[in-house]
Structure formats: C-alpha cells, structure tokens
C-alpha cells in the first residue's frame, strides 16, 4: 500500500481493501480450522487407543473425606452427643452393573427381612448426585462385614465404609433438647452445598443438632485416588484434609435434666429451668421422650409408626411446641400489669362473694372457692389464687392493655435464641380474634383471659422465660442452649432481646414477690404443703388449666372424668427470692387434683440446683407426693 496524500475518502479503495482482507481472513480461518481438525484427528483416531485405555483402565477419582461432626457437651463437660465408629453399606449406582441382581444378592447375604429389603430398594433408588455413594445400611455387624468381604468380587459398586456415627448416651432424656441427626433426604440434597457435604450422609434434623448444623458439621476434604476399572482404590495421589466441626457446650445440666425427666415419671408434661440472670437453659424436658439413636441408624417403618401413633405423642416437643392455657400461673404478671396501668394498688381490697358479674349480665364468673375469699388485697389474691380479683382487674384493664402488658413478658412470641422449631403460642387480642374468627371481642372473654383461660396459650419455655424476667425485676433475657461454640463463648448480650420492663415503683416487685412467697409459705397459700421445710426463700404460683370446660355452676370431680380430660397442673417459681438463681416452669398434663403435683416438681428442681447436698431421689419425692394427694389445694 502506498501512502497517498489525498484528503478525500475513497470508498472504492476502502471496499477493495476490505474484500482482499476478508478473503485473507477466510483463508486464515480455514487454515486454523484445519489445524484444529488435524489435532482432533490425531487425538480421536491416531491416539484413540491410548486415550481409550487411559479412560477405561485407570481412572483417577476424587473421593470425599467427610468431616468429623462436633461433639456436644453439657455445662459440666459431660458428653451428650458423640461419634462412634461403625461400618456402613454404601452403593454407587453408576458402578453397579445390574441393580436388581445386586440387591437380591445383598438381601440373601445379609439375611434381610422383607421390610428391611424394601427399605434397601427405596434407598438405592433415591436421587443422588452422580458417583456419590448412597447409604443402604448403617451399623453392620462383624458377620455381615465378613460376608460382604468374601463376596466383594460379585458386588461391584458396593462398599463397606467405616464411618463415625452419631450416638446419644442419654437419648431418652435429651432427645427433645438436643434433637438428632438423620439421613440427608432427597429434599435436603437439593439445597445443600455439594462440596461441603460431599461424603456426609447425616444432617441435623431437630433441636441443637439442627440449629447449630453449620457449626457442628465442618468442611469435607477430598482425596484423589487411582482406581482400577471396577472402581477399587489402587493408591492415593493426594488429599485435602477435612475441617472437623466445632464442639458445642450447652448450658444444660445433665443431672438436672435427668432429674426433671425422672420427676415427670412417664407422665405427659414438660419442665423447663433457666438461670434468670443469663437465660441459660439448665433443663428442658419434654416427656415422654424417645430413643433418638433410632433415627440416626435409620428407624424401621413399624417402630416409626408406633412412635407416630402413640397417643402420648413422644415425638412432640412439649417444652417448646406444647400450647397450654397458663391458668392461674399468670396472676403475678397480671397483678404487676394492674399496678403499672393503675387499675389496682397494692393495698386496695375487693370483696369476693365467690363470683364476679359483669354489669347488666346475669352470668356468674366463679371463684374456685364457692363461698369466696371475702376481703382480698393484691398479695392475698396471689397467695390464695383468687379468681374474682382478677376478673375485676382484667375487666377494668381491658383486653388491649392486657395484651400489650403480657406481650412485654414474651407471651405470644418466640422467646428462645437458639431453639429450633419453637412455637409462639398465643396471646389473644382484638385484632387476632377478628382475623381468626371474624368476630368482635366480647367482655366476657377478657375475664377468661384474666385467669389464664380462654384463648390464651403458652409454651413451657415461654412460661419459664416470663418467670425469669419477673425474677430479674423486668430485665429481659432470652433463653439459650449453647454457652460455647468451639472455643468461643456465646455472648451474654444477645441481639433482638426485647425491651426491659420498667415499672414506676421498685417496691411493686417486692409486693408481687411477697404474694408469690405466700403461695408456698403462707398459711392459706395454694402450695403451702410444697413449701414445708424450705431452706431458702422461694416465690411461685400454681395454676390449673382446664382441658374440659364446665357448664355454669357445674362442679368438677376428678374421679369421674376420664384421665385425659383431667386438668393440667402448672407451676412456675423462682428462688432464692433475694438473688434468683433458678426459674422453673412445670406442666404436668392431666395430673388432676389441682396444682400440687407440679409444685412439688418445681420445688425438687430448685432444691437440686440450690442445695449442696445430693440431688433428692425421685422416688422419695414421689412418695411424699402420694401421701399428699388427699388434700386438694385449689387452683
């Protein structure tokens, strides 16, 4: 190209240049394509044998190395969840020639029952990532391992894999609190990070195991191995080590938890104990429990159905999901709310004729004591659990203020910090009723709520938390289960802690506490028998929750009712009064005969935690209770 000096553009020349260049470009492209084709011919025709052999005979495989799951300890370092070495049977479907014959052979070899065989077939066909082993059976015994080893050559794609399996030493008493791990199911496979969970068969399903899954699991490692054509490992070429999961220390005290479980003695119910100052959960029991180890190894269908259909609902975590009318246990909270709202004063009395009537309404809302308590002030209203006082209080306060005041104690909300699957239960309000039933709120319903009945429902954890907040004189703590993750303590200050409750006069707390102390030690306290021989000052409140509602003026007779229609017994308490170290909520379903039963359990829990001596024997307490059953201590 010669350098030309003309200033005008020359379209003809530009087109000509382009055509020439485009032609050269096509030539170049053809040459380069020829080069690529030549390379492909070389790889795929000339060298085909070499690569074919390389691909068929020797395969390099990446094998996952699952991390060791973190251990779980109680507050004193007692092991609650450990890992035991076991042998599992796994199957890699892509390496199996004929799935059906392989499974037939396995069934024969392992002597499986038809039901187990069915489970095998289902698991073998579950969707899996390609070339990921599927877990067929856990916890093989020695004979089975030997049998498989001998027949190994007939079973391509089948491996016996040594693996650490979760084991819960105290599974019955801990099942609900710490939850359990189980096989990763088809739904979970879709959402898990495949790299992190490579080689892991188990995942936390409920409880602490679920909530702290990320912490406990760790990170999978990899090893690159050379294998022969049948997939057997010949040698290891390199590995990235897995990062084990972090250990978890809980706030639970195994001894106290154990005591709580024994105290419930197979009855349906729940006990939750907290440290009021910190929210640490010392015990959280839901009875009956179940053997969570069954879920780790894979529960068989019949056992699972039995658990599911058991009318005592052992799988149901009553401590955090059970919803019970709180009954009279909420009277101390309402008394405080009444003071705050100016509806009552500590010393003003009312006269209780044994019932309460709304203006212009003939219906009588009854006190539990038919002939009434006469003159009742605030402290006495708590001690004797007078209903009339609270009918009047609730009516004057109105449902709106009552709802707001009680919500401040956490009722109707999830309160836990690291509790999986907690229910918020129900604190009824005008809005709630309109949304739920499309009906207005009736004044009579406020009265029911005033004695902890009606729509109001609480969980044992909620009741324990509200008790702790009360014991703290309004300072909020969120109940928590983990005290230490790995080496890091969980901070005492938790985010999203609700606002503390502030009242106009600090003396009000003392007056309410005094009423609660009289419940146990006053001469007419509803739980005075429980309070006999107390070695420290304890404040509490009894409650019964109606399962079966009575018609007006009907009388209740525990003997006549079927066991499951009897009232639930409730008790909430904290101690020592001057410096609360424990707050307890106890609910015993269908205990019947008033709240005595629950009060005894609360006392036993508190004794065990506060007194130096050996924890009292559950049998002794039970005996003491039976001797006491003759007296029915009202509400």
């Amino acid at each position: 190209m010669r350098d030309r000096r003309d200033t005008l553009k020359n379209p003809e020349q530009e087109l000509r240049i382009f055509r020439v260049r485009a032609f050269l470009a096509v030539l170049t492209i053809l040459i380069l394509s020829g080069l690529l084709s030549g390379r492909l011919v070389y790889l795929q025709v000339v060298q085909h044998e070499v690569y074919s052999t390389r691909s068929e005979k020797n395969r390099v495989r990446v094998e996952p190395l699952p991390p060791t799951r973190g251990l779980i300890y109680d507050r004193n370092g007692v092991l609650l969840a450990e890992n035991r070495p076991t042998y599992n049977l796994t199957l890699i479907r892509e390496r199996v020639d004929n799935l059906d014959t392989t499974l037939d052979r396995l069934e024969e070899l392992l002597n499986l029952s038809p039901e187990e065989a069915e489970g095998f077939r289902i698991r073998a066909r579950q969707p899996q990532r390609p070339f990921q082993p599927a877990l067929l059976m856990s916890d093989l015994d020695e004979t089975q391992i030997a049998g498989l080893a001998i027949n190994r050559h007939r079973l391509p794609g089948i491996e016996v894999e040594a693996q650490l399996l979760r084991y819960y030493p105290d599974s019955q008493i801990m099942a609900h609190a710490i939850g359990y791990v189980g096989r990763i199911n088809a739904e979970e496979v879709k959402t898990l990070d495949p790299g992190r969970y490579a080689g892991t068969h188990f995942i936390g399903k409920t409880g602490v195991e679920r909530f702290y899954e990320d912490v406990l699991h760790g990170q999978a490692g990899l090893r690159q191995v050379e294998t022969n054509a049948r997939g057997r490992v010949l040698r290891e070429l390199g590995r990235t080590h897995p990062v084990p999961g972090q250990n978890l220390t809980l706030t639970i005290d195994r001894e106290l938890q154990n005591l709580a479980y024994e105290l419930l003695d197979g009855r349906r119910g729940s006990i939750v104990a907290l440290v009021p100052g910190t929210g640490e959960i010392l015990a959280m029991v839901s009875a009956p429990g179940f053997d969570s180890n069954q879920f780790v190894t894979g529960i068989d269908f019949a056992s699972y159905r039995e658990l599911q259909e058991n009318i005592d609902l052992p799988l149901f975590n009553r401590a955090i999901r059970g919803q019970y009318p709180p009954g009279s246990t909420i009277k101390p909270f309402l008394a405080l709310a009444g003071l705050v709202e100016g509806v009552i004063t500590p010393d003003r009395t009312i006269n209780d004729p044994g019932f309460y009537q709304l203006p212009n309404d003939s219906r009588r809302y009854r006190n539990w004591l038919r002939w009434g308590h006469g003159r009742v002030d605030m402290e006495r209203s708590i001690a004797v659990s007078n209903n009339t006082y609270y009918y009047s209080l609730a009516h004057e306060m109105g449902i709106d203020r009552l709802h707001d005041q009680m919500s401040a104690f956490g009722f109707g909300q999830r309160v836990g910090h690291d509790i999986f699957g907690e229910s918020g239960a129900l604190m009824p309000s005008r809005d709630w009723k309109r949304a739920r039933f499309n009906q207005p709120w009736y004044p009579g319903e406020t009265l029911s709520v005033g004695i902890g009945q009606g729509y109001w429902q609480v969980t044992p954890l909620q009741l324990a938390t509200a008790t702790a907040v009360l014991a703290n004189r309004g300072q909020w703590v969120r109940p928590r289960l983990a005290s230490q993750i790995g080496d890091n303590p969980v901070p005492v200050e938790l985010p999203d802690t609700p606002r503390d409750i502030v009242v106009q006069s600090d003396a009000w707390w003392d007056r309410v506490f005094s009423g609660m102390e009289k419940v146990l030690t006053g001469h007419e306290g509803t739980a005075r028998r429980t309070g006999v021989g107390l070695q420290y000052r304890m404040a509490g409140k009894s409650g019964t929750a109606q399962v079966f509602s009575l018609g007006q003026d009907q009388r209740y007779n525990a003997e006549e009712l079927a066991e499951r229609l009897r009232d639930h017994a409730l008790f909430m308490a904290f101690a020592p009064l001057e410096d609360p170290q424990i707050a307890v909520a106890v609910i015993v379903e269908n205990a019947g005969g008033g709240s005595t039963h629950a009060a005894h359990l609360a006392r036993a829990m508190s004794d065990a935690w506060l007194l130096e001596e050996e924890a009292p024997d559950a049998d002794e307490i039970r005996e003491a209770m039976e001797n006491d059953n003759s007296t029915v201590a009202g509400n």
Partner: protein
Amino acid sequence: MALSLLTKGLRARPVRAPESGISRRKSLWERTHLDPWLLLLLLVLLIVGLGVLYSASGQRVDVVMAQGSRFVVAFLVMLVLAQLQPVTLMRWAPLLYGVGLLMLIAVELVGDVGMGARRWLVIPGVIRFQPSELMKLAMPLMLAAWLSRRQLPPRWKELVVCAVLLGLPVMLIAKQPDLGTSLLVACAGVFVVLMAGLSWRFIALLGIAVASALPLLWANLHNYQRQRVLTFLNPESDPLGAGWNIIQSTTAIGSGGLWGKGWLQGTQSQLEFLPERHTDFIVAVLGEEFGLVGMLLILLLYLLIVIRGLWLASAAHDTFGRLLGGSIILTFFIYVFVNVGMVSGILPVVGVPLPLVSYGGTSSVTLLAGFGILMSIHGHRRLLPR
C-alpha cells in the same frame, strides 16, 4: 449438502434495485432486518448447545432451563439490535465506549471479587455486571466509527489513536485478571484496524515488536497465568494440579474415537473429575460423546456461521458497517478457535467459553447482540449502489 443450501441462500440475496421505484412489497426478512440463513444456523447451534449442556451438567434440567431462558433473553436483544440503524450505533459508539471505560476503572477501584478476580461491578440488589463484556462490543464499535470517518488506509496518526483506544481497556481487563476476555477485546479492536487496511509493513513491524515484548509480558503475568503456559508446554509435569484439566480433557476427547460413546454415555465426562465440564471445557464432553464426527460437524457449523457473517459484512453499504461486522464475526471465530484449541491441548488455558454452547449468561447475550448488530448492518443497507 449444507454447503449447497448456503450457496443457494447466497444466490437468493443479491442487492436488488427496486422494481418499479414506487412501492414494492417488502419481504418478511427485509421488514424485520433479519438474515434467515444466519438465524437458522444460530438456532441449530443453540439447540445443539443445550443438548450438550444437558449431558455435561450431569443431566440437570435446571441448568438447561437456566441457560435456555438466557438464550431467550439474548435472542430478544439480538432481534431488537437488528432494528437499529447502523447510523444510530455509530453515534452511540463514543458514549458506549466511554461508559465502558469508566466502568472498567470503577471495577478496578470498587469492583466485586469473585473466583479470585475482580471482574464484577455490583449495584447491591439490582445488578451484577461485568463491564468487560460491554467492551467486547464497544471496542469494535468505537474503532470502526472513528476510522470510518478518516481517510483509509490509516496512517501513523490514526494508528496511535487506535493503539490508545485499544490499549487502555485491554490493559484494565488483563489486570482484573481476565486474560481470556482481554484477548477477545484486543482481537475485536485489532480486526477493525486490519480490515481498515493496516499496511503490511506495519503488521510485520508489529509482529517483531510483540515477539520482543514477550519476555516483558511474561514478567508481568500472574503466577497462575504463568503456570497455565508452563502447563500447556508440558502438561505431564503437574498431573494433579494445573495439568489436570488438559490431561483429562484430551483423554475425554481422545477416548471418544470416531463416532463417540454416545449422548450421556461419556464415562470421562460423567465422572466428576473433568473440571468445568459444563463451562469452558464443555467441548471435551462433546468430543467424548459424539467423537470426531460430532466435532467436525460442530466446527463446520461454526465455519458456516462465520462465512455467512463475513458475507453479510462485506455486503454492507459503508465502511463503518464493514469494519464493525467483519470484526464481530472474526472475533466470534477466535472464541471457537481458542476454546477448542485449549481444550484439545494446542493452546494454553485461557478462560474463553465455547460460544453459545458453554454455560453462562453474559457471554451469550454479548455474542447474540453482536449478531444483532451484524444483521442490522446488513438489513439496513441502502438498496441503491453507493
């Protein structure tokens, strides 16, 4: 057979003068400014691509659906761009280029790091965007727009300006580091200048300059980039580390043989060790499962697209259209060549996808946008000779 179809297509599209001069019914293709042949070839490629992706992703329908929906978006972008007048594109070129350059600088300053490289610009909750993708089109647009108003072939003054316009973004992208994209952007720019008539003397000079600058370039490469070049020269030196990709991909292709192992039957590809098998290394899956025949057919498909594209470019009515179209289609070929070359082990590994087959959204949009521009150049040419 395909060739004869193509030539028939070519014959059917001469530059025609209006028959009566007053009102002639325009054909569907003239009204939509689309090129039926190019459209057909692209559609075949997209469908083949989805089929290969299904196998390469381990038969995951969700991956194929995601890619398919991106294709739909990219296709719409193509259709819209084809409706623009080339003059409009020419006017917008400086703005697009300027914005692209600013965004590249922004990436350098505040960009988001992903996979060890700073490539993304993020407006939280709104968009994650790779400005280097925009540059793939803005670069040839800018150079073509600028050069087409100058006297051609370009002289020294023009070449210096071109070098600056080209060098800045390429350097910024290479620094991210994204060697593959900077290579593609550089090619897009260089092709414009070449098509504009860069003198042969200069090309020779440039060649010598590049050769002598290689040691300098080597010194400035990132460690992993150096490793790739070394590995390319001798893959067996590090069979588990950086050489892994190449050994596995060549094994996959080589074991495919003449006819391949069949769709979804590739033992190498279906094993989890072939890395990035549904992105940059997807052609290894194709080679293993469809063999030499499949590979040659897909190469032929790409060739037909490139030749048809070049034809469209050279039929443009002005220099701007020719330069821009030529650059777009030649860059498209570079994609194919570099990708297949690296997977089959004759080029070092740089991150260039197999166009419209590899999994990935942004590159499909950019590529089909380029074809949209190509069709616009062709579809809006004046029917009267210059």
